[in-house]
């Protein structure tokens, strides 16, 4: 379960560039629920994700993940509770390490790391099996450096990495935005499969309204650092991408320059 209460985040406080990135956001995501988050640039989507991941510490409010109050905990300190896939495939994995070394690193997320060899025969076999499930042929390249993989392959491996160690919540930060349409679809299907098989509590930030409505159980729209829409169940099923765009227009009080970008 995730719960954020009255979160305030201000960037550049006291400077001419001061910006209220989040203004009193309240959000509770139940155990096993899959929530998608949309919003225009600067709406606060990434900041909200950062608040959950520990990259951004709020100036006020409370963040609870599972049963733990993590409001003041940094990224590394709460990593045992949070699995994450980044937007940039280069950020989520280590290019200089091999595929299996990346997996070994992720398998110990949030745990103590000892002096035992990171890649024993048992672990190697386990990693191989998990990578083979992707059907990308990567199981034969386990010793290859991660930076030899394409962006899509790296995101797919990142998803596997996110599930190797237990976690309370899975955070997806526009994780298909940097991929070509075919690979984006592959990664989304994989995401869906992993989330439903493992019943993960998931929050996915996305630019794509299509994705936001097609996946998950609930959709939240942010604007100006506040939640302006929160739909689930039947009312969400009836919602079309056009409705969302109309809502966007109303909120912003202006026509959108490029609808195609948002429908994507």
């Amino acid at each position, binding site marked *: 379960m995730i719960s954020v209460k009255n979160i305030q985040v201000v960037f550049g406080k006291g400077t001419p560039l001061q910006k209220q990135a989040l203004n009193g956001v309240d959000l509770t995501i139940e155990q096993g629920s899959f929530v998608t988050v949309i919003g225009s640039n600067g709406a606060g989507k990434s900041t909200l994700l950062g608040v959950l*991941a520990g990259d951004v510490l709020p100036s006020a409010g409370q963040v609870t993940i599972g049963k733990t109050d993590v409001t003041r905990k*940094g*990224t*590394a*300190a709460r*990593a*045992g509770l*949070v699995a*994450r896939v*980044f937007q940039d495939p*280069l*950020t*989520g*994995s*280590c*290019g*200089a*390490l091999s595929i299996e*070394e990346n997996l*070994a*690193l*992720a398998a*110990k*997320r*949030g*745990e103590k*790391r*000892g*002096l*035992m*060899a*990171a*890649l024993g025969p048992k672990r190697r076999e386990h990693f191989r099996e998990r990578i083979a499930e992707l059907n990308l042929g990567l199981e034969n390249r386990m010793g290859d450096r991660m930076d030899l993989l394409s962006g899509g392959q790296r995101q797919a491996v990142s998803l596997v990495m996110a599930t190797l160690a237990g976690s309370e919540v899975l955070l997806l930060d526009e994780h298909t935005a940097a991929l070509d349409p075919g690979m984006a679809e592959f990664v989304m299907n994989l995401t869906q499969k992993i989330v439903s098989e493992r019943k993960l509590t998931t929050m996915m930030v996305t630019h794509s309204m299509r994705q936001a409505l097609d996946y998950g159980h609930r959709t939240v729209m942010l604007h100006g650092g506040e939640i302006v829409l929160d739909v689930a169940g039947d009312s969400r099923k009836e919602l079309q991408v056009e409705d969302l765009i109309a809502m966007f227009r109303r909120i912003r009080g202006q026509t959108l320059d490029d609808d195609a970008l948002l429908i994507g």
Partner: protein
Amino acid sequence: MSQIALWGAVELGLVYAFVAIGVFLAFRVLDFPDLTVDGSFPLGAAVTAVLIIAGVNPWIAAGVAMVAGAAAGIVTAMLNVRFKILNLLASILTMIALFSVNLRVMGKPNVALINADTMLSPFFGLGLREFYVRPLFIGVLVLVAVIVVWRFLESDAGLAMRATGANARMARAQGVDTNKQIYLGMAISNALVAFGGALFAQTNGFADVTSGVGTIVVGLAAVIIGETLLGARGILIALIGCVLGSILYRIAIQLALSTDMLGLQASDLNFVTAVLVTFALILPRLRRGGAA
């Protein structure tokens, strides 16, 4: 080049292999350009020499030297992590401070270790000639260091350190306290360099406050020569490359200086070093260009 000169070069190369491995840890694994080594190498030599003269067992003296080196590394790490001083500048500050520290430790600029018992003493007089014993003995120590560092870097803890240098953001997301890794890595790196200094004092029979000048260049030269020769093929190969690079560097220098035809003299050492390192840096580029 005479046999004695050749084995002398190998011996010195092996002593500096510890520096090369330390530099590899800082520059390549942690991506931390660390110049502290110019101070921690003579620090190791100074601590060892003073303790041996005071009658301390040379092994224990070398151990204390490593602790002193680790402390120097931790100071640099603290300046960088805690006080946000640029890594390169932080290491320069520690380096110049160590110059004074080393003078204090020795009480004078130079301490001689003539006729004192060293780590090597028990191995002389076993029938093997002295100029074989020295590289052999240090070679065994280097082998131990390579194996220990290799096993560490391929352990769970070592992976955390490698991830810290390669992608700190990812490392934190995986629960790695990257600041702690920098402290640990800098401590290990400078402990190894100080151990190199301890061996230097014992094999050469003195500790000198100026013996640290250019240590970083020698260490980097060894790392780069190793990479050029063996390529990037995993941790073990990289560590072997450090050792090999360090030895070849010394032999190349010895060759350059002892070939009368070139007309070089000892004072040309730094120039020769610069040419060698430049060559090692250009070589991979030339090879690629040739293939294309």
